[in-house]
């Protein structure tokens, strides 16, 4: 049995293996639009290492968090932007 944590993504419960980043969790949950560019394009992770800012989401109410640098924690609430 693997150790799992449950987070909430746009109001929906998502269960992932412990140690999974929010970026990986969202992609597995089928999220394609992490945030939108100034021109309104849907954007999703590019660099995977905290540089491009394309994976920004709102985590526990704080906007602009980098999903690829944030590890899922029990009860975490994630909202796409």
């Amino acid at each position, binding site marked *: 049995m693997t150790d799992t944590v449950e987070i909430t993504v746009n109001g929906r419960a998502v269960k*992932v*293996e412990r*140690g*999974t*980043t929010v*970026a*990986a*969790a969202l*992609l*597995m949950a089928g999220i*394609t*639009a*992490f945030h939108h*560019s*100034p*021109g309104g*394009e*849907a*954007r*999703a*992770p*590019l*660099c*995977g*290492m*905290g*540089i*491009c*800012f*394309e994976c*920004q989401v709102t985590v526990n109410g704080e906007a*602009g968090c980098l999903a*690829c*640098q944030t*590890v899922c924690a029990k009860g975490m609430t994630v909202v796409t932007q």
Partner: protein
Amino acid sequence: MSHQRIKTSILVVGAGPAGISAAWAAGEGGARVTMIDNNPLPGGQIWRGAKPSDRQSAQWFERLEKAAPTRIHSARIVSADPGARTLLAELPNESTAAIAYDRLILATGARERFLPFPGWTLPGVVGAGGLQALVKSGLDVRGKRVVLAGSGPLLLAVADLLREREANVVLIAEQAPGAAVLRFGLKLAATPGKLWQAAALRARLATIPYQTNCWVESCHGDGRLNEVNVNQSGRRWKVECDYLGTGYGLVPSTELAALLGCETGADGVAVDEMQQTTVEGVYCAGEAAGIGGVDKSLVEGSIAGYAAAGDESAARALFDDRARQRRFGRDLEAAFALRDELRSLTTPETIVCRCEDVRLSDLDSLDGWRDAKLQSRCGMGRCQGRVCGPAVEFLKGWHPAAVRPPLFPTRIGTMIADDEVNP
């Protein structure tokens, strides 16, 4: 929310191979070493997540464990006061730290070079290394169809990981000519360990189509990627896929070094034989000092660590090994040099600066990087030009503007944190 002040003898920035090696070597003589990194766990990009993937990484994680430097993770360096030999870091939960050092070792690594082409902003288009990072941080790719395109051995390393995780790698498109790749392969004979690794890798990837002289020229899909257009010396075809992992080599991450006043160039941070930068007491090792792979990073890290701790003879003992590893880096660069045709991948309508949605045509008739920033907003977004900078440099030959703090978007509360304590 808290602010702490830390004093250390030797501060290592970056916990990838170069940083781990530097911290270990610096600690051998008993110096007080602190290591700071922006990831939750050590390992950098290549050994992400502190999970040993081979004998080499297992050995170095063991050494890190034994050396036991003070480790600060999930921290970003946002500004520097070189005169006071202090860096300011932003930590999670609105916390901050001012870290004072006697000697500083920069092991800030590298990032991928992205080239803009139609459709590259679609969800599903990821950096090759980016995809590797996502998979290592939990992304399940079983059964996913993946195209890897760009240049360099990273594509093969990523393919190997994806294969192991049961993804369906449908194509590896390498822009370099087959002859150059072959020559590079033969040169590996000079470093037997690498040759053996390469041969084993080749065997594992035998079933994956590997095309040279080949690149992805556009991506298509409704809301997310489902197809790429591939070009191989004029022959074009379409490939359906769930992910495109793309990357055209690596770019040294030199921003912190530049902020500290160290001389930097397109090849990375300039260093002397002891890996010392042009600023006394500041060393640089690994990809930030020139792209060359994990073995170069490890040996440079140790040299920098020994040198910073004052053990120059231990550092000198590693010079021959370093020379060999640097040669490998130069061969790598020559073999995977980017072809001119790639410049025409970017159409006038292609978004170049993703943060601000600036298109190539918006840069027409502008007068260099600074003019582009002022007049088109190119490079003015949150990534501060880290993605579009190298792309625009390749497309237009414009060199990035000077580095100023903050190095990353930073809470204003963080920017004033240390002066609050000691105004």
